[in-house]
């Protein structure tokens, strides 16, 4: 008896819009892996699928909303968070996830990101960080390491990048963690955990972008970047690393700290309600 190579359906078909496949992502891209973790977490969560909503902005990661078989909103560049805030505040029973990329969330949407974290609005943010603008063809962005090359930095990036967990911790998020697309089980468990964590949660997911970032920076392909993750990632215990050490430069042989950085219980944003006098 032979095992069929092509099967009619995949166990996760019920959570993806399989009628939209194939997806747009390049070979070696990490976004699909993170999307799978999200889909698995949705299926395993205590919240009915009908009450899960996903919003996203613009860019490769922004396309995730269009592949999830959920109520899904693919909004404007950088504005997924305020759109999601409106959804969540208007209908608190929804579990609202914002799935987008570093350029979308941190550059053009940076103001919304820090203010949503400050308010501690009950949103679940999954931020793909691939260190560049992939969809438009490998431009440098707010997470690109200093010196790294991009199509808008042919001589190397002259700017310093954001350290996202540090930024989110300082802004007030209730929960901040970092994984890579190599850490699929931890990532799925972590997303599942944030569904039960009130307030603003932020998961940074390092993901290969071999076409946009790798090509310009001597990271041969997606597999090579996954190998770097395996060699360099260090799982932190609570409080055993300085925030400054959370910076990342894939071109340097230095540790990439991953794990849960912040898990606290500031009160989640709640609109004021008063009795009419």
């Amino acid at each position, binding site marked *: 008896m032979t095992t069929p190579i092509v099967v009619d359906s995949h166990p996760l078909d019920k959570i993806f819009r399989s009628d939209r496949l194939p997806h747009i992502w390049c070979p070696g891209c990490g976004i699909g892996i993170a999307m799978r973790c999200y889909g698995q977490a949705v299926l395993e969560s205590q919240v009915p699928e009908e009450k899960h909503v996903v919003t996203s902005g613009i860019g490769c990661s922004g396309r995730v909303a269009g592949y999830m078989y959920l109520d899904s909103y*693919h909004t*404007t560049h950088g504005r997924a968070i305020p759109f999601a805030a409106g959804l969540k505040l*208007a209908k608190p029973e929804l579990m609202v996830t914002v799935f987008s990329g570093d350029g979308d969330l941190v550059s053009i949407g940076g*103001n*919304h990101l820090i203010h949503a974290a400050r308010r501690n609005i009950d949103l679940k943010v999954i931020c793909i960080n691939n260190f560049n603008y992939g969809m438009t063809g490998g431009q440098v962005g707010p997470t690109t390491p200093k010196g790294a090359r991009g199509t808008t930095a042919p001589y190397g990036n002259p700017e310093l990048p954001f350290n996202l967990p540090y930024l989110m911790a300082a802004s007030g998020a209730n929960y901040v963690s970092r994984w890579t697309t190599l850490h699929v089980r931890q990532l799925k468990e972590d997303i599942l955990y944030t569904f039960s964590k009130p307030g603003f949660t932020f998961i940074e997911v390092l993901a290969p972008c071999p076409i946009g970032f790798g090509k310009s920076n001597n990271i041969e392909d997606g597999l090579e970047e996954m190998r770097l993750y395996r060699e360099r990632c260090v799982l932190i215990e609570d409080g055993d690393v300085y925030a400054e050490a959370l910076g990342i430069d894939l071109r340097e042989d230095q540790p990439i700290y991953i794990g849960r950085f912040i898990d606290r219980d500031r009160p989640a944003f709640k609109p004021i309600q008063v009795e009419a006098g």
Partner: protein
Amino acid sequence: MTNRTVLTGKHFIHGDEACAEGAIAAGCRFFGGYPITPSTEIAEHLALRLPQVGGIFIQMEDELGSMAAILGASAAGVRSMTATSGPGLSLMMENLGLGIMLEIPCVVVDVQRGSPSTGLPTMPGQSDVMQARWGTHGDYEIVAYAPWSPQEMFDLTIRSFNVADRYRIPVLLMSDEVVGHMVERVVIPPADQIELWERKRPKSPPNGRFDPFLAEDADLVPPMVHAGEGYRIHYTGLTHNERGYPEMTAETHHRLVTRLVQKIRRNIDQITLIEGYYLDNARILVISYGCTARSARRAVREARNKGIPAGMLRLISLWPFPEEQVKTLAKDMDAVIVAEMNLGQVSREVERQLRRAVSGVYHAGGAMIPPEPILNAIQEAAA
């Protein structure tokens, strides 16, 4: 129980407060905004009132976020609004386009001030009229109303919500600093006398595939479903097919954009509001709107007292432009005058429709145009 939701009775309040009470009476239960003169009183009043009626007030980090938040809240099924002035309106243009593309109803109040740029924050203007029409990129139709009194700030806010929901479109309430800060009598009717239009909703409960952008009715408006209802809809600002999926072809794009435009053009009679004064046997037509229309009516009355056959048309809806009514009225007129607090915006639209020159009474803004220059223009036309 006293109904604190609709403050039925006679009030002596300013336009911004009347607008806020109109929103409450219309069932608006979400306001996301950013402070900006001369609209701030709307936010302040709703910060007080919304928590009393189970609504949500949130002061956002900027106008980009405000506009995105009200679209999100409306997508969840709640009537939503923001209020701003010129500089904020510029920032809202991005997501105004998203609202048009996703067909999410909402109301955006623009209490206009002297512009461009920071301009005259505390002083009036009417120079955002063309931005209201064409400010976001692309081809579209939009709906805009221009109140001329605090009473209309109340009435037209309700009207704006109704039209927004009925046709699934953001509606702009183009007020100005004079009307926003003017204090006058406002009569709020009993709740059961306030007409509220419902969103068109799907006929069947969720059952497998649902096409959220399939418009089967003659009005070209697809029924709206809200987040969390089980229809598993996808909304995207990309060109999309009836299923809601991105479909980036010239054919789909043309089909979508044409429907978005036609759903307003086809229903223009239900959207348009105009008012005429002294039109019997008029030979000189004055067209105006908003606060300037108050001076224009005075000028026309004085012209009549002098025996000049002047009449007036007040545009209550600016967009879509009431072209048929304007053409019909202007047909037999010897002269057409447009009075507005900008250097010629609506006048160009009037000229475009009538294919004849009109004379304008313009001012760049900062103070209401008094009746005298309008009366002078009428007298010149009569001479």
